[in-house]
């Protein structure tokens, strides 16, 4: 996952924790191994090296593709899991020069979720296209881990918190109304200006530009690329933290908000999404 991951459970039972540690780490490893773009033999790499051919997929992949399609449609093409190829033009750490528009146009021909053909059984990508579930993978893992924990923890009402690199889910069985702040998990947000939040029930996900951006000729370029133009999104917020019932949703809201650039605030307000936004 390349970021610190932890599960916190309010219990004194060591053996119970060991069992859950095993189950949750297995599930996270399973998802990572299956969809990591850094592995060379997993399902994702098979799909990405299919060179136009058809690859068999399972139900989980089918459901993830359906969800990715929903976000693609609702964001009017801004959230696109096939846009990863643009990454090669923008290193961000030591960007030497701005890429040539011609090169970007060529890359765009290999981008576009709408060009993907898939069914419940298989997928075929156009030649040269690569997909990557990085945008929703971590949040999905959080929700899957939360499901496992819920199945075991609800019996004795052991409250828990899942944190996979800043994407969180918390469950409190005793308080459905969050007045009891002493019981809540105190979560610090990366941007110190945001302070910290009391999380009792629900999911939190953050999208931010703080780590990957550069300045050239007085302009700030973020790591968020517009898949329709190939260029970075202009004036995205520094970070957006969203709250939702599930982590996948929270992550999607924050990603979509970032993609709105300078319109992030109005997007979040009009959709009535709980959030913390920092410019």
């Amino acid at each position: 996952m390349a970021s610190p991951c932890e599960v916190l459970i309010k219990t004194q039972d060591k053996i119970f924790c060991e069992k859950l540690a095993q189950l949750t780490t297995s599930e996270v490893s399973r998802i990572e191994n299956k969809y990591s773009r850094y592995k060379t033999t997993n399902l994702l790499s098979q799909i990405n090296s299919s060179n136009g051919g058809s690859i068999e997929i399972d139900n989980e992949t089918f459901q993830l593709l359906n969800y990715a399609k929903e976000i693609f449609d609702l964001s009017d093409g801004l959230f696109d899991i096939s846009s990863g190829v643009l990454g090669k033009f923008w290193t961000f750490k030591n960007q030497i020069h701005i890429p040539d528009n011609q090169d970007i146009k060529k890359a765009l021909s290999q981008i576009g979720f709408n060009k993907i053909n898939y069914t419940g059984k298989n997928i075929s990508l156009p030649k040269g296209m690569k997909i990557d579930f990085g945008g929703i993978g971590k949040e999905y893992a959080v929700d899957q881990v939360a499901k496992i924990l819920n199945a075991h923890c609800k019996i004795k009402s052991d409250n828990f918190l899942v944190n996979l690199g800043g994407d969180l889910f918390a469950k409190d069985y005793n308080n459905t109304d969050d007045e009891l702040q002493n019981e809540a998990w105190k979560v610090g947000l990366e941007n110190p200006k945001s302070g910290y939040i009391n999380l009792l029930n629900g999911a939190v996900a953050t999208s931010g530009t703080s780590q990957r951006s550069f300045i050239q000729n007085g302009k700030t370029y973020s790591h968020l690329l517009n898949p329709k133009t190939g260029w970075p999104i202009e004036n995205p917020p520094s970070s957006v933290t969203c709250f939702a019932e599930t982590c996948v949703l929270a992550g999607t809201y924050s990603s979509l908000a970032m993609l709105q650039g300078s319109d992030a605030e109005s997007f979040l307000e009009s959709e009535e999404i709980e959030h913390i936004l920092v410019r």
Partner: protein
Amino acid sequence: MQLINKHNSLKNSANDSKRISLKSKLAIAATGLLSATATETIANEATDEGWYFSASVLAYSETDRVSAVEVIFNAETTIDETGKLNIKFVLDSLTGASANGAITQNTLQTFSRPSGNGQYNIAAGTTPLDDTFKDTRAQLNLSWSNLLSPESDYQYTLGTNISKEYDFQSISLSAELAKGFNQKNTTISGGFSVAAEEYNPKGSTPIGLTSMAIRDNYPTEDVYDLAFDATRGSTSEAINSAELLLGWTQVVNRSTLMQFNYGYADKSGYLTDPFKIVSVVNASGITQDYIYENRPESRTQHSLFGLVKKHLNESIIDFSYRFTSDDWEIDTHTLDLHWKLFADGGSFWEPHVRFYQQSAADFYSTYLDQSEEVPPFISADYRIGEMSSITLGLKYGFEVNKDQRAEVRLEYYRQTPKSVGTERVAGLENLDLYPELDAVYLQVNYYF
């Protein structure tokens, strides 16, 4: 720092009847994604309170002596969260030869097989080894541990062990109770074990201190048989033992653990080795006779053991020291060090060093001088003589896949028996009475 209290539940967007918002469409899509993938998660649960297996294969070989192969199969499972059941099955097979206790001579030596059926010759200048035993053994261990009650600080462990080989069988029972103190940073434990063992060697056990009858020395088979039978004792001999083990485990800090144990072991019965003899030599060092060894009928051993385990940056050091002392006057010291170095991808290297030293039993003698009176107890078994040994080993472990891992271990063992300082009889100077023993063993473990 600004404390922000956020209300985290999904606000009801049903009020917004103007359009089906992006938010609700997404919410539906997310619910669909997470519920559709439910079955895969639940499937993971089924394997959890399952069985964990491990298997081990050992190939052991001493230079010119014993070779052995051992296979272990272990199964472990958790029952009701805190109960642990462990089943272990061992099979081993030995071949080769083992020193019979007689000393090397400048002439050919002939010995009778333990059963009396047949004899074997040992060349001049070589250590007498008996290769009669080719044995296979099977062993079963069962152990069950649990807390006294779900919230208890007390944990009990019950165990049983059964072992059977051609001429020997053993059964033991053990019970241990452990209590945690100070948030389980301290654990005190007390355990008790009893065992009943039985020897039924082919040809019966020899009567200690009698002379070995050798066919060549007798005119006819019948006369030899009579002489051999006269050296025979009972067909079956029992050994009983009882042991007490007290332990104190202490967490020192986040990375360090220590354990101290005191053990008391009492063995009584037939403690003699029915296959070992002692050479009786004259003033010129020439063997005149072989007598069967004889050991006391009881042995009491005290042991003190200390262990430190420390987790360093990318490695773990495991260091232990053990001291034992018994009423046969055998004192031993053991220093054991393992250093587990973690490498990429869940693999590791673990070098191992062990030093061991023991003093001789007070009735140990390399040989018996003919002019001396035969003592009540005597044994030339190098394993209760004065000796030191060193082990050097290296282990490599790696993950085969997310559920299976394997380990390979290679160890070199060198044992150096020492002279007990008894006057060297002239004629024996050129002979090696304290041959070194070298052994190498390779072990492969598999966890699945």
